[in-house]
């Protein structure tokens, strides 16, 4: 839970009686810590005590309330300043509100209720801000990269080293890896452990956004920019201001959009679709793809200049099948997490189940392992997961072929069956693909081997 400190209130009031009365009134709430100052100077000297709110008289002996407020706002834009004044002049009130006063009260019969209400509102805002700050810290802790990316294998330790390097600087990062290797997790770990952690992390999956909407999604649009643009929309780049933008599946971006992205990255400014205003952007860029971008450049599908702009620090995530014992380490972690989340008793993974996992090639990588383990945890009726609970439903049947040791004849049968299924039982085509005689296949069908 977020901890709420005493709610510090400054009253700046040169009228000794009125100031003391306000102090007494506000201190009736034991959660308030009220400090009374008679001059603007005294208030400014004490700003280091970080008040949550300042009640400021407009007419002070040493300086005007407006000057005091300007000084406060110079360094502490977020402290709400409420003007409580005998001035009934509306133009004074309007001028102060324009300069950033939170509210303006005349010292009349309503001041008590209005002050109480405004305090209530400010307290709620402070509470919300405190909760947001706490949650941001929690997210930071959650994404502490050694909590996110588990493993002891040399290949994953190398990744830890690269993440540590990327955290210390603002360099762009390009993450590659097969599906399910944890590219977005790595991007979040970099963001939430970097100096930008308190600013937004905004992710956009390029392949998931229709081609004609991607520019508006990334850079925003002005009202009326196109049919359906009924209001102004702030794009992902602006949303990520001061933070990190994560462009997933960057390899899917079309050439036209690549040119626009390159310009934004180079100029560090953008224009919303249908707008003229140049908007400065300050975002860290992390991109990810499961394609080989260098190959895409060779094929002419990806701009070379953009490729070099985005490359930055390349992090290539290893497939799970190359991470050796990490498979077991992750499996144990996932089963523990699953049991905890579902308030189940702790489960262990038998030696035979571990061997079965180690023999699999995990085309879906860590994501697939997690799904397999969670299903196994549900299927078991004991406190153990054994090999019978581990089932691989990968669509990559060819990859599964070598999982179990078999005779050559059995492998042959499985391969031909697989190809027949793949090519709609077209025997001639399968024979051609496998470079075997069609009679071999017909014979196996006749003998009901397949």
């Amino acid at each position, binding site marked *: 839970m977020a901890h709420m400190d005493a709610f510090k209130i400054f009253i700046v009031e*040169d009228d*000794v009686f*009125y100031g*003391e*009365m306000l102090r*007494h*009134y506000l201190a009736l709430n034991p959660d308030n810590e009220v400090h009374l100052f008679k001059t603007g100077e005294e208030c400014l000297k004490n700003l280091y005590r970080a008040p949550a709110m300042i009640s400021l008289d407009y007419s002070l002996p040493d300086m005007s309330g407006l000057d005091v407020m300007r000084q406060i706002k110079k360094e502490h834009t977020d402290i709400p300043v409420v003007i409580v004044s*005998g001035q009934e002049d509306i133009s004074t009130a309007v001028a102060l509100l324009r300069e950033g006063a939170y509210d303006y009260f005349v010292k009349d019969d309503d001041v008590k209720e209005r002050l109480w209400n405004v305090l209530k509102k400010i307290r709620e805002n402070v509470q919300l801000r405190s909760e947001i700050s706490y949650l941001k810290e929690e997210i930071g802790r959650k994404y502490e990269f050694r909590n996110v990316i588990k493993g002891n294998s040399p290949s994953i330790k190398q990744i830890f080293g690269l993440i540590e390097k990327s955290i210390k600087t603002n360099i762009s990062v390009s993450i590659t890896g097969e599906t399910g290797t944890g590219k977005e997790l790595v991007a979040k770990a970099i963001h939430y452990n970097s100096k930008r952690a308190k600013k937004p992390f905004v992710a956009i999956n390029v392949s998931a956004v229709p081609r004609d909407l991607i520019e508006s999604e990334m850079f925003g649009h002005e009202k009326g920019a196109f049919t359906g643009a009924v209001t102004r929309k702030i794009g992902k780049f602006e949303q990520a201001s001061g933070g990190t933008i994560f462009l997933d599946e960057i390899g899917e971006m079309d050439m036209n959009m690549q040119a626009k992205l390159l310009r934004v990255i180079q100029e560090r400014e953008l224009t919303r679709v249908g707008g003229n205003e140049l908007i400065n952007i300050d975002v860290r860029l992390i991109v990810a793809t499961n394609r080989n971008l260098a190959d895409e450049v060779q094929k002419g599908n990806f701009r070379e200049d953009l490729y070099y702009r985005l490359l930055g620090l390349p992090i290539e995530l290893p497939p799970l099948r190359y991470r050796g014992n990490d498979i077991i380490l992750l499996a144990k972690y996932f089963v523990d997490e699953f049991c905890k989340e579902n308030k189940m008793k702790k489960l262990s993974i038998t030696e035979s189940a571990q061997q079965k996992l180690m023999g699999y090639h995990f085309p879906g990588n860590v994501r697939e392992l997690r799904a397999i383990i969670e299903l196994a945890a549900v299927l078991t009726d004991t406190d153990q997961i054994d090999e019978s609970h581990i089932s691989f439903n990968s669509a990559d049947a060819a990859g599964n072929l070598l999982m179990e040791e078999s005779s050559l004849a059995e492998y042959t049968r499985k391969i031909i069956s697989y190809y027949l299924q793949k090519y709609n039982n077209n025997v001639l085509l399968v024979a051609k693909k496998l470079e075997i005689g069609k009679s071999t296949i017909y014979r196996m069908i006749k003998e009901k081997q397949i």
Partner: protein
Amino acid sequence: MAQSEHVNYSLEKLIGFVGDDPEAIKNMVNLFLNTTPSLLNAIIASFQEGSPEILAKSAHTLKPTLDVFGIRDTYDLIRNIEQKAKRSELDEAMDKQIKQLTHTLELVFQELKLDFNLP
């Protein structure tokens, strides 16, 4: 002390601010008795010296306090004095208003001292 017993002032607003706590009320009354005379003196002196700025400032400061003590008729009086001082109209009419204010406040001071047993 019943509200109706007071002739020249009302504690209703003050209680609204500090609560129905006799000690807190007495402290605030004491503070009022200690600070208001000097403000009143500043009003009188600045009128006599022809200093409308100080007069306006002192009247402005005193205005909300008089309101809190519900001192009958003085709120409009002090408001008039402030407005006129801002216009530098330090005339005979203002002299009368200041004298009226002084008289009323002296009655209030006496009554408060009596009611709260203060020296």
